[in-house]
């Protein structure tokens, strides 16, 4: 390596790390960040409220306050109709935590520091999603437990029951990737907290989560019937209570895959650009 004298020396060529090294470091970085994010989450009381108390309140509210007024033909009554919907809804709302944590880290310069370090580009996002998957799982299990306590029962076997939980969690993670993008694009904790996830409300409430779509006005039905939240919840309901699995199964898989394919690259790009 020769160095051309001042004023215009050539840059030295730095060898880039091998593919194996990159993979190894990428894995280690992701694992370390996952652990870190879990630790942060367990120390933050606000997250606990989001992850556990709020979903439980929703279950009780719908079961006992609105439930009596909502007619249903589902075997086992409204609580059976409700639970798949509320599990999906809780999983989706858990993504608040994703968006807020990332926006906060952006704002405080934590992400800038990470980006100035020799770290895999995708590690921050993947670590976050891994930690959030665990958080989601806790939420889903707590909600299911409360559901059981207030009368919910699976009417199918253990296989479909687990399938329903997994689908609910994967759905939640998909929504987390959207929220991750939103959080990193907005980059301001307060804005994310007040309007960053406003889109989740129509998406979860104008769906089959709490009431059958047939009770809505026609123009709203067109939206409700064809949006992913309804499709995923109908599939979860079929898994929990019985019914045809195939059609909504394919549609759910397609929607979820589509969300991952679109929003993971968008979120990684927002991370690189920040």
């Amino acid at each position, binding site marked *: *390596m020769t*160095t051309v004298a*001042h004023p*215009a*020396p050539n*840059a*030295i*060529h*730095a060898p*880039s*790390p091998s593919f194996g090294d990159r993979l190894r*470091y990428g894995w*280690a*970085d992701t694992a*370390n*960040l996952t652990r*870190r994010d879990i*630790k*942060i989450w367990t*120390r*933050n009381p606000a997250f606990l409220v989001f992850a556990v108390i709020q979903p439980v309140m929703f279950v009780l509210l719908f079961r006992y306050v609105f439930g009596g007024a909502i007619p249903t033909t589902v075997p086992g009554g409204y609580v059976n109709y409700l639970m798949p919907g509320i599990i999906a809804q809780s999983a989706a709302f858990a993504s608040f935590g994703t968006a807020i944590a990332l926006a906060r*880290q952006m*704002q*405080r*310069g*934590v992400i*800038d*520091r*990470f*980006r*100035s*370090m*020799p*770290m895999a580009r995708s590690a921050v996002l993947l670590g976050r999603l891994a930690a959030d998957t665990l958080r989601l799982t806790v939420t889903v299990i707590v909600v299911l437990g409360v559901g059981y306590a207030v009368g919910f029962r699976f009417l199918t076997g253990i296989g479909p029951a687990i399938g329903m939980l997994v689908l609910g969690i994967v759905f939640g993670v998909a929504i987390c990737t959207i929220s991750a993008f939103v959080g990193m694009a907005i980059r301001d904790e307060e804005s994310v907290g007040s309007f960053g996830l406003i889109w989740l409300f129509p998406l979860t409430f104008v769906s089959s989560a709490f009431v059958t779509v047939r009770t809505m006005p026609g123009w709203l039905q067109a939206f409700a019937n064809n949006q992913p939240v309804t499709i995923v919840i109908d599939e979860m309901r079929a898994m929990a209570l019985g019914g045809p699995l195939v059609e909504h199964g394919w549609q759910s898989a397609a929607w979820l895959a589509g969300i991952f394919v679109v929003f993971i690259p968008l979120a990684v790009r927002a991370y690189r650009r*920040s």
Partner: protein
Amino acid sequence: MTVREATRGWDGPAILVEGLRKSFGEVQALRGIDLEVARGQVLGMLGPNGAGKTTAVKVLTTLLAPDAGRALVEGRDVVHSAAAVREIIGLAGQSAAIQEELTGRENLEIMGRLYHLTKGESRHRAAQLLERFDLEDAADRPAKGYSGGMARRLDLAASLVARPAVLFLDEPTTGLDPRSRMGMWEVIRELVGEGATLLLTTQYLEEADELADQIVVIDHGEVIAAGTGEELKNRIGGDVVEFVVADRTHVDTAVAAVATLGEGSPSVDRETGQVSVRVGAAGSNALVDAVRALDAAGVRSEGLGIRRPSLDDVFLALTGHGADSAPETRGRRGRRSGRPEHAGAR
């Protein structure tokens, strides 16, 4: 990586910047910056709000891609060899990038792990840095409860975990009280003693003077002056005679009396009654002349003295405006108030 390993194969300057440009839409944050920092030296980048300091640091630390020009850190191009640059730099950005929920120790240990040190090494390095930055007592408390100075020190410690060969500090003392700032200066001086190259930005003129071997003054995205603190001071032509007029109504009389002493008209602060005259190399003769002139005019003065020009004077002479009167002054913490001429001369 040691400094020696990090710098192998390159004997040019540790930081080399040529014609660097960066715009955000209409705003030209950098309009062709050139810089050179020799290995082991401290460059102070001095400029008011919105001058482009943070933008320059972000380009050099691979966070932003420049629109034009190039930047090499220890010979590695920040665009084409970004990964190699990241191996050898440390960054403490403008806001303290620490995770509040974690303790000081945890913050540092996780940094070690992310720099691919082993668990043992990370732990050892964290303990070492906590001791050095006087954070041992608070090490196992969540960083949420840290004072501004402690948070800043932890942030600086975090940037040092991997022993970077080139360190970038963006306004390391902004928002700190004078005592914490002195503490920070001491820490920074020690660091430099260990052979690292340092680029630090500041709005405090005295800070650049205290810490930097070389200073570049930037304003509106351009380098408007460069040199040592001493050179910059000489550039505006020697010493300054300064005094305060006891009776404010006599300020004009006083100015008229000393007007012929200096090179150019005296500058006046009507609020405090302070008058400064640049007297070139006339030195103590000028002081005697000033006393006589004021006496003859019947003006009573206080604190009459001669001083070397401060960097604030330099800034005023170079830009025609004080360091604090940048056009786009954004609200921010820890800004000084008052007239710029006085701020640097404590």
